[in-house]
């Protein structure tokens, strides 16, 4: 069974915008001609509690309506989650992990997974998105995703931000772009 479908899982805490990140990415991929799906982990969310969100994209129409068990890449909005849950569960071999962190990618060991880091918190605060204790990093981290994975362009992400983000559209676009420029792998 050939698979052109690409699946991403996002990890964050309630209130940080992980679900919005999945939806923006879906919107961006749609703008580039893909069929898409995005959904949150179907649970009761409380502010501060770990949440997950998912998106799928495919060049063919997507019929599948199931949960995502083996994502192709993982995006972590809040590094404190690394101590709490196994963010890499089900990650395909050779998969990519993008983490919001000021540390270098080489400081993280996740088996064979390729790690990318970006200080999305710093970028978000710089552009006035949230506060240092509660930064809104979801748009910045999408910029990092775009650079790390390469299957959704930063331009499409900027457009999707314009559609899906209610306030501070320009600041969010800039944060995504800056993160895109700065993201580095191992």
């Amino acid at each position, binding site marked *: 069974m050939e698979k052109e479908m690409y699946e991403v899982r996002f990890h964050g805490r309630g*209130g940080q915008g992980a679900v919005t990140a999945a939806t923006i990415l879906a919107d961006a991929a749609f703008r580039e001609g893909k069929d898409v799906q995005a959904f949150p982990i179907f649970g*009761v969310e*409380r*502010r*501060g*509690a770990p949440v997950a969100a998912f998106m799928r994209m495919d060049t063919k129409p997507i019929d599948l309506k199931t949960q995502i068990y083996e994502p192709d890449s993982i995006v972590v909005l809040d590094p404190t989650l690394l101590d709490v849950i196994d963010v890499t569960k089900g990650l395909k071999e050779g998969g990519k992990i993008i983490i919001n962190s000021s540390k270098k990618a080489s400081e993280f060991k996740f088996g064979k997974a390729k790690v990318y880091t970006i200080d999305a918190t710093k970028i978000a605060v710089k552009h006035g998105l949230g506060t240092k204790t509660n930064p809104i990093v979801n748009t910045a981290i999408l910029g990092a995703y775009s650079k790390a994975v390469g299957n959704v362009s930063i331009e499409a992400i900027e457009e999707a931000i314009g559609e899906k983000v209610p306030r501070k559209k320009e600041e969010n676009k800039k944060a995504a772009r800056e993160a895109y420029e700065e993201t580095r792998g191992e």
Partner: protein
Amino acid sequence: MKLTIPEEELMYEGTVDCQGCGAGLAMRYALKALGKKTFVVIPACCWSIIAGPFPTSALQVPLYHTAFETAAVVSSGIKAALDIKGIDATVMAWAGDGGTFDIGIQALSGVAERNEDIIYVCYDNEAYMNTGIQRSSATPYKAWTTTTPRNYPKARPKKDIDEILVAHDIPYVATASVAYPEDFIRKLQKAKKIKGTKFIHVLAPCPTGWRSLPQHTIKLARLAVQTNIFPLYEVENGKYKINIKPKNPKPVEEYLKLQGRFRHLTEENIKEIQEATNKKWKKLLRKEEFF
């Protein structure tokens, strides 16, 4: 330093309420006040979730989860069973404002009219918080909620549920606030000794829905009283007693400005709210004088 409230904990740590949740605190106090021989009934509300999913329970007393509109009447059913079996215990309905002011009001009115022997506590966070901050009739005038957007905020005043219960001629109606735990606990302990329907309305700020800082929950619960927006009073057998009479009431603005759900208020709106608050307070003072 001596503790002025009961020490025993009847609620486990590690509940999943949001940071700064007033409702979590209120339950902790309530169980301290009522003690071990208490049955708790919880309809659909935030506490349905805070109480913990299968196979856990946050409370160290028996708990029955029930349908949204039924808290009062299911409680009366439990109490009837306990009575017929000769078991001496308190039954407490623990409902949010949605399950009390709106969908639950029919059952509550029925129970109150029949003067069934239960304690009904409404923890009021002023909107349907569990389903995502939609307006209830407890939502204050001009507040933002997801069904009262900022260009069309809540157009009607907060329903006066306390007066509705007073009109049912029940032995005890009281308001409370999580910033005044001793007062809240005293009221619950008084209620426990009374036979008949006892209604306690406790203000429980919600940082998530009020768009306030988690660390401001107690401050807000105190300011609500100090501004006369949420007076603390009791009505025992029809006789009014106001528990706290602020000598110099704080201006409502001090309370409102700490909450994002009021951030769109104009000077005109704030003036309106101040006048309405003053008027209501005067009315309450008159009631205390005449009843």
